[in-house]
């Protein structure tokens, strides 16, 4: 049996629309961060990829993604085990047919999904920077937006089996992820990990002995400005998700915004202090990754934790991001120029786990998406089940799909393209034409 449809007041609907309209600034922020952390000769390519990937995600989600994600109370495929329903996937029509586009919760979910799937798709661009072909990035995005993202989003936000762990099995209020720590950040971050594995490291990143060499980002200003832009959209993302999927009162928006901002602030400052202590100077790129990590971690429980808990979540996220960036690069030889795996996947996983530690949900606070009754003691288990689903199902799925794609359509650019820079090789023009360049770099790929 599908979960009941949420009911929203006119105020909540109006507020939701305004909040959702803020989300594209997060996309702009992430695009700037990815570009700034990449190399100058791939800057235009990264921005172009961001636009194309965001567009592809929106189109594919419109065509088939939302029909599989569905919405709470909408048509869905459900099977029964032991007398309890397992809601697996939406059963709506393609092209948004059948969705009342006049301010209904379903239409708001479609609008939020159209933008947030683009955010999830932008995340892997950070790990594939400087070597991921534009066409391959779009094809990979189609898989993400058409299948991986809608499936997990259905389970969490559309009354799927993870959302109903509370009502069906007494596990707290079911899996809680108000702003998309799991649905957007971890799904995008695990796809970033898959892409980094499939593409391999950039030329010259590792010596023959396996030691990493530093390839610094080319524009810290882009990176730090991108952080500020991302915060604006994150206010919208967290608030709209909490109102739309968990029935949080519009008045709670202030708490959500405060939690979001101070979690990011605590995380960025933690990263800055750690790098200052270890390397004598604060590291701008790690502080930026810390900021994004704090935002990603804040999303899951943004409406249900106290501001003090949000600070604690941010401090842990900043520490986790700082050390995991180094761990991935040094120990696992994973070349992730944008730090996407650490800032989105690792911090997002921590955000989901933090719900089990810090959330104290008042009775009746969670009305939608099947998040009803259940013992509070089981909340941690619901969160662990959700995390296990991300690592045990979403990661193999996204890795397998991208590996298959790579077999038919190689995702990594040719060595010459990497040497010349993605801008000239794939776009035929650089982002900074006034820079001094070598004459052979003007050689066109095709004449």
């Amino acid at each position, binding site marked *: 049996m599908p979960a009941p449809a949420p009911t929203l007041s006119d105020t909540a609907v109006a507020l939701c629309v305004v909040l959702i309209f803020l989300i594209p600034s997060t996309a702009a922020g992430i695009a700037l961060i990815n570009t700034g952390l990449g190399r100058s000769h791939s800057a235009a390519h990264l921005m172009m990829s961001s636009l194309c990937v965001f567009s592809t995600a929106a189109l594919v989600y419109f065509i088939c993604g939302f029909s599989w994600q569905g919405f709470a109370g909408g048509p869905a495929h459900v099977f029964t085990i032991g007398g309890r329903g397992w809601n697996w996937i939406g059963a709506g029509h393609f092209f948004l047919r059948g969705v009342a586009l006049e301010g209904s919760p379903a239409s708001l979910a479609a609008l939020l999904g159209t933008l947030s799937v683009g955010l999830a798709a932008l995340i892997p661009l950070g790990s594939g920077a400087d070597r991921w072909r534009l066409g391959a990035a779009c094809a990979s995005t189609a898989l993400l937006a058409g299948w991986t993202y809608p499936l997990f989003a259905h389970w969490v936000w559309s009354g799927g089996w993870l959302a109903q762990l509370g009502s069906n099995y007494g596990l707290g209020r079911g899996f809680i992820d108000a702003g998309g720590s799991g649905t957007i950040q971890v799904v995008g971050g695990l796809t970033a990990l898959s892409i980094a594995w499939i593409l391999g490291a950039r030329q010259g990143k590792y010596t023959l002995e396996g030691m990493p060499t530093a390839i610094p980002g080319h524009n810290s200003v882009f990176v730090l400005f991108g952080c500020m832009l991302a915060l604006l959209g994150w206010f919208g993302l967290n608030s709209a998700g909490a109102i739309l999927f968990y029935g949080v009162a519009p008045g709670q928006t202030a708490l959500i915004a405060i939690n979001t901002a101070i979690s990011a602030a605590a995380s960025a400052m933690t990263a800055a202090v750690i790098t200052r202590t270890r390397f004598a100077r604060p590291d701008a790129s790690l502080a930026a990754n810390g900021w994004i990590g704090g935002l990603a971690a804040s999303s899951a429980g943004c409406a249900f934790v106290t501001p003090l808990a949000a600070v604690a979540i941010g401090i842990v996220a900043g520490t986790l991001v700082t050390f995991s960036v180094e761990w991935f690069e040094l120990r696992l030889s994973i070349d992730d120029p944008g730090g996407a795996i650490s800032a989105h996947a690792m911090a997002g996983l921590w955000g989901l786990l933090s719900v089990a530690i810090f959330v104290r949900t008042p009775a009746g606070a969670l009305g939608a998406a099947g998040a009803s009754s259940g013992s509070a003691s089981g909340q941690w288990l619901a969160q*662990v089940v959700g995390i*296990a689903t991300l690592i*045990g199902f979403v990661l193999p799925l996204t890795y397998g799909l991208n590996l298959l794609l790579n077999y038919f359509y190689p995702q990594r650019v040719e060595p010459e393209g990497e040497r010349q820079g993605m801008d000239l090789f794939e776009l035929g023009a650089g982002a900074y034409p006034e820079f001094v360049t070598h004459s052979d770099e003007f050689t066109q790929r095709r004449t």
Partner: protein
Amino acid sequence: MLLLAGWAIVLAAVALLAAEALRAAFVLAGAGVEVLGLALVARAQLAAQGEHD
């Protein structure tokens, strides 16, 4: 395969076990299997990159 196997254990524990402690133990065991799978995938990728270099 270990990642999927771990997830299957988690799902089975949720669906089939009623006792809270037993269910929690099996869910954690499934998560442990996933961590093992993740470590093996990481090692395999590391070895593949070494060969490529």
